[in-house]
């Protein structure tokens, strides 16, 4: 909520500065559903999933029929997204902020914790990736929106994600490599998630380039390192663990 308020406030100030008509209800809506900046939708989804978790755990352990039906939530939602996109040509407005899109992965996590075996090889990942690319290119050919065919919420992307998760679970049993710098990014991931869009906005003002590789590389490196530095500096400057926890820096 703190970050949603900050990003909504920044968006409001920017709109007033540029002479855009301010619709207060729209800002209130943006604040509540985390629409002021793209990544906050995941936090809204996570809150929804957190609220229903005890019920999901209870059902998955005690009621076999309903626990099987729960696997259908995300595929049905995916079907709805496809039908909507083919009919309207654009993605539905709330598709990112509702938990059914991601519920399947959350449920997979709970089930894997309860003993479900999911393993995938490197070849499996490669096949899923190729299928995902073919699907995206096909959806582009059919004239669907770029927002949809590059989305993480497509059949191809979901299959690829499941294969990656299967591979990660397999590796977790045997992996012995230690990458300290990746762990550092992992430790600060919550904070990076919150600040990176602000850093990216600044990086966007610095990086002007017609070469896509240079453009992407510069924006990515500046944003990733800049965000990590902000979070690490925040951890040093703000001593209160309560404040750090509330802003997601620890």
């Amino acid at each position, binding site marked *: 909520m703190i970050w949603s308020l900050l990003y909504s406030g920044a968006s409001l100030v920017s709109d007033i500065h540029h002479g855009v008509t301010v619709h207060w209800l729209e800002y209130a809506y943006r604040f509540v559903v985390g629409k002021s900046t793209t990544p906050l939708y995941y936090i809204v989804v996570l809150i929804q999933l957190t609220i229903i978790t005890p019920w999901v755990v209870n059902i998955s*352990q005690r009621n076999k029929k309903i626990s099987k039906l729960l696997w259908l939530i995300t595929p049905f939602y995916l079907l709805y997204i496809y039908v909507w996109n083919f009919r309207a040509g654009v993605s539905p407005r709330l598709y990112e902020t509702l938990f059914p899109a991601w519920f399947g992965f959350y449920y997979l*996590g709970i089930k894997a914790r309860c003993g479900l075996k999911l393993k995938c090889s490197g070849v499996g990942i490669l096949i899923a990736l190729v299928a995902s690319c073919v699907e995206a290119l096909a959806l582009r050919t059919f004239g669907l929106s770029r927002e949809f065919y590059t989305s993480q919420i497509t059949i191809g992307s979901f299959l690829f994600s499941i294969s990656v998760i299967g591979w990660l679970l397999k590796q977790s049993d045997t992996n012995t490599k230690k990458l300290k710098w990746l762990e550092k990014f992992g430790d600060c991931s919550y904070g990076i998630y919150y600040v*990176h869009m602000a850093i990216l906005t600044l990086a966007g003002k610095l990086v002007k380039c017609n070469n896509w590789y240079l453009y992407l590389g510069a924006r990515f490196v500046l944003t990733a390192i800049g965000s990590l530095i902000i979070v690490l500096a925040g951890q040093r400057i703000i001593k209160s663990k309560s404040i750090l926890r509330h802003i997601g820096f620890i």
Partner: protein
Amino acid sequence: MDRRSYWQGIRGISILAVVMIHALGGFDYSTGYGTEFIILRQIINFSVATFVFMSGYFVPIEKMQAGHFDYIAWILNRGGGDCASHL
């Protein structure tokens, strides 16, 4: 390597993929690079799904099934403290 290090490393990879997804925006793709963009997007599209999976994987199921589970504390702590102890 301990489980915590492994999964924190995965979180690190996932957050870098999220940053890359957002760094891809703002470019004028009418000038080209459309196919490269699609392929790279598919490669890094695992990130949010992996984060969500991990959120479910580290739910403290044993605590939830015990009689003394505190629902309000679970909501307020985003599951964070409870989940960390299971890493």
